[in-house]
């Protein structure tokens, strides 16, 4: 692989890692608060649709983004209602949300646009345009570093930079603020938080809302940044990969970044190279497609150390049995 191709693959890695990263951080907030979320996929999908639909109608990507966030947060709200208020099974609620998003997006899209569950293609202000960072042009001539800056670092849409900035921000919120301390505590020992006079329900809903907002960003990026419009099932399992990345990352923000970049890289490689020829043995494309999933299982099997989830994860908080 020559340098240019490598840059291309890495560039593509960044693009593909972005929705994973946003969703992964979304899951991180939710699960750190003790609410397991396998509905990331559905929330992203809902956001992707809402952002594309509103951007198509209004011509403004910002309104679209807002709509995406609202849609994902609404889905989050359902999850919260089921798993926090009504102490239902969080896994089942997540499954239901995935189904709901998968059906509703197409149903509404068809009703609104009549294009078979697609939104119209977004043009002009309906999309996030790539941002060229300062001096990208000027520096592109510098050997090695120049192209890296100009092609790999510069030239992504705003949400990519937002996603990457979210990593230190998440770390800071989680480990340097009062809110973060309480959030982590509520995922470990909700009764400790409760007896310390802090509302468990309030904290968990806050986490769920943050989760919704981040999923909203992820979905909006898919539909208005990476692509130019919504198509059915366009999340294509990214929510599950994000979940896997979260476990891989042991529920920590910086690790999440690396996990998502790794999965992004795997996807980028699988996309670009159909059948990889390794000295006589051809690796079929199906293996590349399945690689992120296989890797997740291998990771889960504990070859990379045991991942201990937040202790109260998945359990509704019930004071009175």
């Amino acid at each position, binding site marked *: 692989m020559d340098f240019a*191709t490598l840059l*291309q693959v890495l560039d593509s890695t960044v693009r593909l890692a972005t929705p994973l990263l946003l969703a992964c951080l979304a899951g991180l907030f939710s699960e750190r608060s003790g609410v397991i979320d396998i509905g990331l996929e559905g929330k992203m999908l809902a956001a992707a649709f809402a952002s594309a639909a509103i951007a198509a109608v209004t011509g403004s990507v910002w309104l679209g983004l807002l709509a995406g966030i609202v849609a994902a947060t609404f889905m989050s709200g359902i999850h919260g209602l089921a798993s926090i208020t009504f102490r239902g099974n969080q896994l089942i609620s997540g499954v239901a949300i995935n189904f709901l998003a998968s059906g509703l997006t197409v149903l509404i899209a068809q009703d609104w646009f009549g294009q*078979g*569950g697609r939104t119209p293609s977004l043009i002009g202000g309906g999309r996030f345009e790539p941002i060229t960072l300062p001096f990208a042009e000027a520096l592109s001539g510098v050997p090695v570093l120049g192209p890296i800056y100009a092609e790999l670092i510069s030239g992504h849409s705003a949400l990519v930079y937002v996603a990457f900035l979210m990593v230190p921000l998440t770390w800071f919120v989680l480990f340097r603020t009062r809110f973060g301390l309480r959030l982590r505590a509520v995922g470990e020992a909700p009764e400790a938080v409760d007896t310390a006079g802090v509302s468990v329900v309030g904290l968990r809903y806050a986490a769920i809302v943050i989760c919704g907002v981040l999923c909203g960003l992820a979905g909006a990026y898919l539909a208005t940044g990476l692509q130019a*419009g919504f*198509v059915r099932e366009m999340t294509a399992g990214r929510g599950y990969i994000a979940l896997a990345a979260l476990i891989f990352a042991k529920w920590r923000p910086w690790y999440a970044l690396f996990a998502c970049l790794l999965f992004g890289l795997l996807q980028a490689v699988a*996309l*670009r190279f*159909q059948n990889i020829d390794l000295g006589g043995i051809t690796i079929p494309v199906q293996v590349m497609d399945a690689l992120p999933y296989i890797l997740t299982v291998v990771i889960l099997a504990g070859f990379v150390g045991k991942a201990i989830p937040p202790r109260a994860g998945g359990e509704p908080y019930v004071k009175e049995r």
Partner: protein
Amino acid sequence: DPALIYDLGGKFDKSFNEAAFNGAEAWAEETGGSYRDIELQSEAQREQALRRFAEAGFNPVVTTGFSMSAPIASVAADYPDTKFVTIDGFVNPEEHPNVLSILFSEHEGSYLVGMMAAMASESNTVGFVGGMDIPLIRKFACGYAQGAKSVSDDIEVISNMTGTTPAAWNDPVKGSELAKAQISQGADVIFAAAGGTGLGVLQTAADEGILSIGVDSNQNYVHPGQVLTSMLKRVDVAVQDAMTQGADLETGVMVLGLAENGVGYALDENNQDLVSEEMKVAVEEAKAQIVSGEIEVHDYSSDDSCPALNF
């Protein structure tokens, strides 16, 4: 009344199925008639839809996609008075006299757009993004490569398939990534024969400022001024014809090529600035030669091989 069954890709794929839909609409507009259509939900529904339409007296029952040929073969005998049409599929006419199989010479149309791609290319590198990796799509790719090579002997044709399952028809993200990869390898015209996936290719091409070529329907309007042309596959005409003939439909096997105007390339106000006079002349000439048999475009599916491209 006629009925129309779309393949799993769905009615509004802006491409193959949508062409069928457009044909049906055109028929309805022209004749004032009405028809019924359905997007399939599952495999088991293929037969069900055929039977339900046949039982309800719809005639002919037109279907799109090669996957419908097997169900038609198993249903047709039960409804001898109903005419079935399979577009892109093949059902043995001896065994099932009430079935019309319509096939297209996609390689011929692809040859023409391949020529145009080569002439429009400045980097002497053109790309092809296919949908699902099946002989049908290789037929597109092979015709395209032959056309391109006929213009420039040393032209490089980069070809990628999106996948090996029907999901490959509906994966614009992957289409987009493949297009980016081809662009980085120097391609400056990319032909997308990939259903919904192709929209991602067209989008990326437009974003990156290179040319793309649409497929099946006229997709020039998707990004005006940035889609060089579209390889037309006149599914719409086929559907409209079948519906017009109605219950008296002539069955058998029909192959539509350049001669029958079953395939072609699209020229309209959206791409008139892109297609030079010289290009038009060359393509029309080649078209005439293909029709007359002077140029023979190799059909990949005839022997599963391609002289111009390695898969």
